[in-house]
């Protein structure tokens, strides 16, 4: 019994239909199921397999499979920050020749495309992208006298919020979200945490720079300001939303909040559920992620999901064909309309289904933000880089512009050299 079912599961030689396993993170499952069904052909069918909820566990489960050369991992969903790790370990089948241009055509937004390559090769196909924008309560911005049609700086919104009893919501807990914030501020000032990341342990550490000090200055300004949320040192994407719009629990003047794309639908639903006062979402505004330095373009964070093909799969060609199919424009449109996961391809933003479902200026903002996004360091040692930054920069109230960047550069180089524990 067992023998025969295993045979049918991988019996490509016998002329049977091949099953390709697609490991997905448990988001938008219904839509993904539909996409998998549509992309199945006469030669193969795509079977969706669920990964755990938590991003760290998703990464470790896939890594354990691939480290053991698992031939049943055909397709997998990856967070962009895990791509270099997986690619450098040789776990991803690169898309070469024609396939590379299909995977990363001109249509793919620059921020998403930047995280899909390793060592000059396309290793994953962007499926959907996430980015952060500045969400705010319009009445607060008005009270602060800010012209939100133009780019605003961190200093402006912190001062504006503090002078008017408002808050600035950020992600300050000791976790990845804090590094997302720090990285985008540093990149917004023209710097980087590390460069030359393909050198692995020998990457160049650049956090001790003017850009690093600019970011530290903003964190210190916020932590010392009345605009800081009371739970700044443990705040995350969910908690920092409190008080953005008017609710009975939070009748105050509101807040500015840097946060991912889910906020729009989340706040609309919150009003529908009665968690916000009626009409509160009319006061919801959105703008480009704040600039670190006045006059310099901000580099919003980028996240999302990219589809890779396992290097040990028995059917890499079919799996690559399937990967291109599950990331095509139709799939991206369905994910956006049904699940609010935004496209990595620019042209999809113009589809009628999307413009019907979301405000046009919000779509334009997402598209622009993903295009201009500043990715986190693309390094096979990213998880160490991230932990090292967290351990020196947390809590936000301890950050000092003339000490923290220098200290973290030293710690980071010791960690990468294997001289310190994390």
């Amino acid at each position: 019994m067992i023998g025969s079912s295993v045979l049918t599961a991988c019996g490509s030689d016998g002329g049977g239909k091949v099953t390709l396993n697609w490991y997905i993170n448990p988001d938008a499952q219904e839509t993904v199921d539909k996409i998998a069904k549509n992309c199945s052909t006469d030669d193969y069918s795509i079977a969706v397999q669920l990964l755990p909820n938590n991003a760290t566990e998703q990464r470790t489960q896939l890594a354990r499979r691939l480290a053991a050369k698992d031939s049943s991992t055909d397709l997998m969903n990856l967070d962009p920050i895990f791509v270099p790790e997986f690619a450098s370990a040789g776990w991803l089948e690169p898309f070469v020749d024609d396939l590379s241009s299909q995977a990363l055509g001109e249509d793919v937004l620059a921020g998403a495309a930047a995280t899909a390559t390793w060592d000059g090769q396309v290793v994953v196909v962007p499926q959907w992208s996430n980015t952060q924008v500045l969400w705010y309560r319009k009445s607060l911005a008005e009270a602060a006298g800010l012209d939100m049609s133009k780019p605003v700086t961190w200093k402006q919104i912190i001062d504006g919020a503090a002078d008017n009893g408002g808050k600035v919501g950020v992600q300050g807990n000791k976790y990845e979200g804090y590094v997302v914030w720090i990285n985008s501020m540093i990149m917004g000032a023209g710097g980087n945490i590390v460069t030359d990341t393909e050198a692995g342990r020998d990457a160049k550490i650049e956090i001790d720079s003017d850009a690093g000090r600019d970011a530290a200055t903003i964190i210190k300004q916020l932590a010392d300001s009345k605009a800081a949320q009371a739970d700044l040192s443990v705040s995350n994407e969910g908690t920092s939303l409190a008080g953005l719009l008017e609710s009975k629990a939070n009748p105050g003047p509101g807040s500015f909040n840097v946060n991912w794309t889910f906020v729009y639908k989340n706040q609309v639903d919150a009003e529908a559920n009665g968690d916000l006062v009626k009409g509160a979402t009319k006061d919801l505004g959105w703008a480009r992620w704040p600039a670190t330095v006045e006059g310099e373009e901000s580099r919003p964070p980028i996240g999302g999901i990219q589809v890779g093909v396992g290097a040990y799969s028995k059917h890499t060609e079919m799996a690559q064909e399937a990967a291109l199919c599950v990331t095509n424009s139709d799939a991206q449109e369905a994910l956006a309309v049904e699940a609010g996961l935004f496209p990595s391809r620019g042209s999809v933003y113009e589809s009628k289904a999307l413009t019907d479902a979301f405000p046009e200026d919000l779509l334009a903002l997402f598209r622009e933000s993903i295009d201009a996004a500043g990715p986190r360091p693309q390094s096979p040692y990213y998880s160490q880089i991230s932990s090292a930054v967290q351990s020196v920069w947390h809590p936000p109230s301890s950050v000092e512009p003339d000490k923290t960047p220098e200290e973290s550069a030293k710690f980071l180089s010791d960690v990468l050299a294997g001289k310190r524990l994390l």
Partner: protein
Amino acid sequence: MSTYVAPRVDQSDRTVAENKLGRLLVAPAIILMLIVTAFPMLRALWLSVYDYSLTAPDDRSFVGLRNYTTALTDSLFWSTTLNTVFIMVVTVAVELVIGFIFAMVMHRIIFARGVIRTSILIPYGIITVVSGFAWQFAFSNNNGFVNDWLPLVGADFNWFGQYGSAMAAIMVSEIWKTTPFMSLLLLAGLAQVSEDMIEAAKVDGASWWQRLWKVILPNMRSAIMVAVLFRALDAYRIFDNIFVMTAGAQGTESVSFLTYRQVIEQFQLGMGSALSVLLFLSVLVVAFVIVKVFRVDLAAARREG
């Protein structure tokens, strides 16, 4: 007594043959043991002298003892070790006292014996991760009951917000879960204390307190030693409660948790293996110290008698 071996001169052909058969019969078990325990240990030893990241296999390089020197000179390793020792000492001490009381109750109880014995043992039957979650909810300032029950503690006090209280919560869960194990081992010791001796002490006019300290405890010393040794080694490897309740935040990491993070989260197989070798060695040291300490006591007891 089981280690008694007949003197060589008495060995007949039959005993030689029997010994040979005996060795043959245990051989498969020994081979299996070597495969499942010796291989991973040797492999860890081998990995620990490399700089080896699972995600950059090509960069693997031999570094000798560098991983060990890095670990042993890093303040993080020592602070987690200290933290682990602290957890071990406190939980074992508390469990010894509570466990002994429970053992006395189980030993002396005359009514509803089965029900009471069973209910004392229930926590030990619960999976550590489950008990960790249960206590985490109990201590939570959103939906827990601990803040409501304790006087002098504000309703919104965050137990997991700072070192002291987070450690207290972790240790309460650990103690709740493993005290039954302690009391079970102590109950076995109690059962060995002869009733005649207690009767004789009673007749001689010894008070309850004297009987406990002069008769019962000295006679169950070996059971206490076994209980402390087992629990101490177990407590030194604490992982689940910390993983569930704080995930190592507020400096509550143990050595096992540090090792876990190096290997599973950061894929640093070399450093992680070095740490697990160090963890293994420190467990040996703990076992050695406890055995030594108790032997000294036993010798002293013998001189008294």
